[in-house]
C-alpha cells in the first residue's frame, strides 16, 4: 500500500477511537471516558474566561501551539462533532464548488459569540460550540438507542430533550450532505479561533510540481480549501482530514514546513477592505457584548427555583457557565440531574425517583466548563444544596428517614413514650435521601438561594 494511504487510514483509525470513546462517555456510566473531554477547546475557553485555572490554561495553550505548528488536526482528531461530520460525510457525493472562503461569516459569528462570552453570556456557544452539540446528540439520541440494544436504562428520555437535540442533528446532517464541512469552516467559532492560528502556521499541506491538475483533490476536499489554479491549500480552513493526500494519484500533496504564507486574503487586499472588515468584526463583538450586558441587567430569571448539583453555587453562576452538554446528566449514577426543559432554564436536580448519592462527586469532577465547580468528595459531603421541609401533618414519626440520612440530620426523640422526628438543619445537605424513602411523602427537599458549607461543630 502506498505510504499516503496508510497515513490517511491511521488518521481514520485514531478518529474512530476518539469518536467511540466520546460516545461511550455519554452512553455508559463509566466516568473514565469523560476524562478525555479535559482537552476540549470550547469548554476550556468557557472555563478560562469565567474562572481561571492553570491546568485549563495549559490545555488551551497546548492545543493552540499544536495548531500553530501542524494545523487544524484538532478538528479531525479531537473534536467529536468534527469526526462525526467526517463519518456522515461518507454519504455525501456532492462535489466541491468553486473556492470560496466564508471568512466574513465566520469572523462575524465568532466575534458575536466571544463578545457575549466575555460579558457573561454563553448562549452563542451553547448553540454553536461543537462539543456541546455532540453531547446533546450523543446523550439524547444515541443513548436511548444504546439503551434499547443493551437493555439498560441510562438516560431519562423525554420528548423535550429529544427535540432540543434533534434540531441541531438534522441541521448538521443536511449541512454535511449538501455543504460538506460548511459547519467547520464557516460557522464553528472554535474552528475560527484555531483557523486564525493555523493561517500563520508552520507546517502545511503543499502541492508540488508532480501535480497534473486532475482536480481529484479539489473534488474530495470537504472544506473547499484547495485553490487549483495557484496550487495552494488554504491552511486556515483545512481541517486535516487528509483525504486529498490519500486520493492524489501522483502523490503530489505532501506535508511539511512551508514558508509560503499565501492563503486567504482578508486584511491585505486594500485599506478600504481592511477598514470595512475590521469595523464589521468590532461591531459584531460589540453586539455580542451589548446583548450580554442587556440580558444580565434585565432578563436573567429562573422560572422555578430549583435544586442544583453540588458545586454549582447558585443559579446565576451555573447558567452563565453551563452549555447544557449533558455530560453530568448522562454520568450521574442515580440519574437525579436532569437536562434543561421548558420549566427550567438550566440543568436541575429532581428527587422524585432517586436522591443524590452521598459518596459521589462525579458531576463536579467531569464538568468540562467548570459550571459545576470541581469540589473534593469531602467538600461535597458538606455542601448544602437544599433543605428538608417536613410536613408535620403527614409525618407519622416512623423514623425510616433517620436510617437513610447520611449526615445524621434527622433523629427520633422519645419523650414520655412519644416518638418525635427531630430535624437539625445545620448539618443537612439536602441530598434527598429522606424524601425518597419517606413512605408518607411528608418530606420535600426545597431549593435554597445559594449553596453553602454546612459548618461542623466538634
Amino acid at each position: 500500500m502506498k505510504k499516503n494511504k496508510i497515513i490517511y487510514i491511521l488518521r481514520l483509525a485514531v478518529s474512530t477511537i476518539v469518536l467511540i470513546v466520546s460516545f461511550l462517555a455519554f452512553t455508559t456510566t463509566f466516568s473514565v471516558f469523560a476524562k478525555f473531554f479535559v482537552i476540549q477547546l470550547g469548554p476550556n475557553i468557557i472555563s478560562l474566561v469565567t474562572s481561571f485555572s492553570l491546568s485549563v490554561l495549559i490545555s488551551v495553550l497546548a492545543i493552540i501551539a499544536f495548531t500553530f505548528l501542524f494545523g487544524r488536526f484538532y478538528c479531525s482528531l479531537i473534536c467529536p462533532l468534527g469526526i462525526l461530520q467526517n463519518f456522515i460525510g461518507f454519504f455525501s457525493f456532492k462535489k466541491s464548488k468553486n473556492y470560496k472562503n466564508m471568512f466574513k461569516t465566520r469572523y462575524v459569528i465568532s466575534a458575536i459569540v466571544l463578545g457575549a462570552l466575555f460579558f457573561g453570556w454563553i448562549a452563542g456557544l451553547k448553540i454553536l460550540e461543537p462539543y456541546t452539540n455532540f453531547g446533546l446528540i450523543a446523550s439524547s439520541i444515541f443513548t436511548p438507542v444504546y439503551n434499547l440494544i443493551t437493555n439498560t436504562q441510562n438516560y431519562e428520555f423525554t420528548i423535550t430533550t429529544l427535540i432540543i437535540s434533534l434540531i441541531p442533528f438534522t441541521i448538521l446532517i443536511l449541512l454535511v450532505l449538501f455543504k460538506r464541512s460548511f459547519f467547520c469552516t464557516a460557522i464553528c467559532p472554535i474552528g475560527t479561533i484555531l483557523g486564525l492560528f493555523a493561517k500563520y502556521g508552520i507546517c502545511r499541506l503543499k502541492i508540488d510540481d508532480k501535480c497534473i491538475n486532475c482536480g481529484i483533490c479539489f473534488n474530495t476536499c470537504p472544506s473547499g480549501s484547495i485553490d487549483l489554479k495557484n496550487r495552494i491549500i488554504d491552511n486556515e480552513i483545512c481541517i486535516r482530514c487528509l483525504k486529498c493526500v490519500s486520493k492524489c494519484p501522483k502523490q503530489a500533496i505532501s506535508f511539511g514546513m512551508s514558508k509560503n504564507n499565501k492563503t486567504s486574503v482578508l486584511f491585505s487586499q486594500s485599506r478600504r477592505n481592511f477598514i470595512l472588515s475590521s469595523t464589521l468584526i468590532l461591531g459584531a463583538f460589540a453586539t455580542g457584548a451589548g446583548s450580554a450586558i442587556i440580558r444580565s441587567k434585565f432578563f436573567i430569571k429562573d422560572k422555578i427555583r430549583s435544586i442544583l448539583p453540588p458545586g454549582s453555587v447558585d443559579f446565576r453562576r451555573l447558567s452563565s457557565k453551563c452549555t447544557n452538554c449533558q455530560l453530568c446528566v448522562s454520568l450521574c449514577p442515580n440519574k437525579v440531574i436532569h437536562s434543561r426543559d421548558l420549566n427550567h432554564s438550566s440543568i436541575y436536580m429532581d428527587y422524585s425517583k432517586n436522591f443524590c448519592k452521598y459518596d459521589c462527586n462525579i458531576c463536579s469532577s467531569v464538568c468540562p466548563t467548570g459550571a459545576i465547580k470541581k469540589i473534593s468528595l469531602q467538600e461535597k459531603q458538606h455542601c448544602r444544596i437544599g433543605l428538608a421541609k417536613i410536613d408535620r401533618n403527614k409525618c407519622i414519626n416512623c423514623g425510616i428517614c433517620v436510617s437513610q440520612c447520611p449526615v445524621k440530620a434527622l433523629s427520633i426523640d422519645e419523650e414520655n413514650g412519644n416518638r418525635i422526628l427531630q430535624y437539625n438543619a445545620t448539618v443537612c445537605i439536602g441530598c434527598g435521601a429522606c424524601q425518597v424513602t419517606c413512605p408518607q411523602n411528608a418530606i420535600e427537599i426545597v431549593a435554597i438561594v445559594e449553596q453553602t458549607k454546612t459548618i461542623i461543630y466538634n
Partner: protein
Amino acid sequence: MNRRQFVKSAIFTSVGMLFLKATNLIAEQSKKIIEKVTTRKYNNLNVSLLGFGCMRLPLQENSISIDLNKTQKMVDYAIAHGVNYFDTAWFYHGGKSEIVIGKVLKKYPRKSFYLADKLPLRVLQDKQDVENKFNEQLKKCQVDYFDFYLAHNVNKREINTLERCDVYSQLLKKKKEGKIKYLGFSFHDSPELLEDVIKKYKWDFVQLQINPVDWKAVNAEKQYEIATKYNLPVIVMNPLKGGQLSTLNQKAVDLLKAANSKISPSAWSLRYCATLPNVLVVLSGMTAYEHVVDNVNTFTNFKPLTDKEQGILSNAIAVYNSSGAIACTYCQYCIDCPIGIDIPKHFLLYNQYKANGKKSRFVTGYESIEADKRADKCISCGICKIRCPQKLDIPNLLKEVYNLYKSLS
C-alpha cells in the same frame, strides 16, 4: 489725591480690615465653644459616653450599599462634638461597614478616636483563621491597631469556638504586640454563661444589650450586675432595641411628651442606659444626620434620669410592651436565610402595624416583598434561630406575620 482724601481712605481701609478681622475672630471663637458630649474615664482614656455604632449606616436609595457621603457628614458632626468611640464588626453591612468606617475615619489622626472591631466567631474555620481574619480587619479599617477588640457574640455555641480555635490566647498575643489595646466580648446569652465566660478568661470590658425593655425581660439587669461584680466596664449595645424605642407607639410617646416635650423618645432610653454608673459607652447605630444631632444633644451636658423620670419611662414602656411588638432589633444576623426570606422586613412591618394600626400599609408592605422571600415560604428549618441574638422563635413568629397578612388581606 490730596492729603485729606488720603487720610479718609486710609481710615476707611483700616476700619474695614479691623471689622473683617473681628468677624473672623468671632467666628473662630464661636467654633471653639461647640459643646462636646460628656466623657467617662477608663484607665487613662477619655471615652465619649455616646458611641457611634456602625451596623445601621445610611444606605443609598433603593440599594443595600452604604451612602459614603452621608456617613462622612454624620461622622464629621459626631467627631466635631467630641464623639470618639466607633464600633464596627465583620458582619455589619455584609462586611462593608469596616471598609466604610475605615475610609471615613482616615482623615482624622489615629489617636483622636477609639475604634472597636469584633472577631467573627461564627465563621472561624481553624486556629489560623483568627490571625487571618484579624489582619484582614486591620486592612479593611486601614489602621494598625484596634483600641477595643471583641469576640463577637459569645454564646452557648460559640464558646466552643473560643476553645476550638484557641481564640483567647491568640488575641492576648495581639494585645501584647499592641495591636489590641483592650480586649472584651459581646454577649447575648444567659447570665450564668456570662459569669462562666468572665471567670474563664481575663477580659477588660464587656458589651451587653441593655435598654429599658430588656432590663427585666431578658435578664439585662442580672448581666449588668455580674459585669459590675467582676469590675468590668459595660459597653451598651441596642439601647434603642433597633430603633423600636425611638418610635414606640403613639400612647407611649404621648406619655413621654407630656412629661417633657423637648426631648425625643430615644433620648429617654439612651439616658436610661447612661444613668447606670458602670456604663462606659452607650452605642447608638445612627442612620440619619438628625439621629446624630439628637443623640449629641442628649449626651451634651448629660443629666442622669431622675427617679421621677424613671417612673414615667417605665410607665411608657409598660404601655408599649402591651402592644405586642416582636422583640426584633433588625440586626440582620438572620439575613442569610437559605430560602431567602427577608425576616427583618417582616418583623419591621409587623411592629409598625402594631404601633400605628394601619392595615393597608402593612398589606402593601408585605406584598412589596418578592413572592420568593415571603413568610409563607418558610420551611421551619430553624437555622435563623441559631443566628438570632435575641433568641426569637423566628419560624413561629413568621407564621404569625403570615396569619396577620391573611386575616387583613
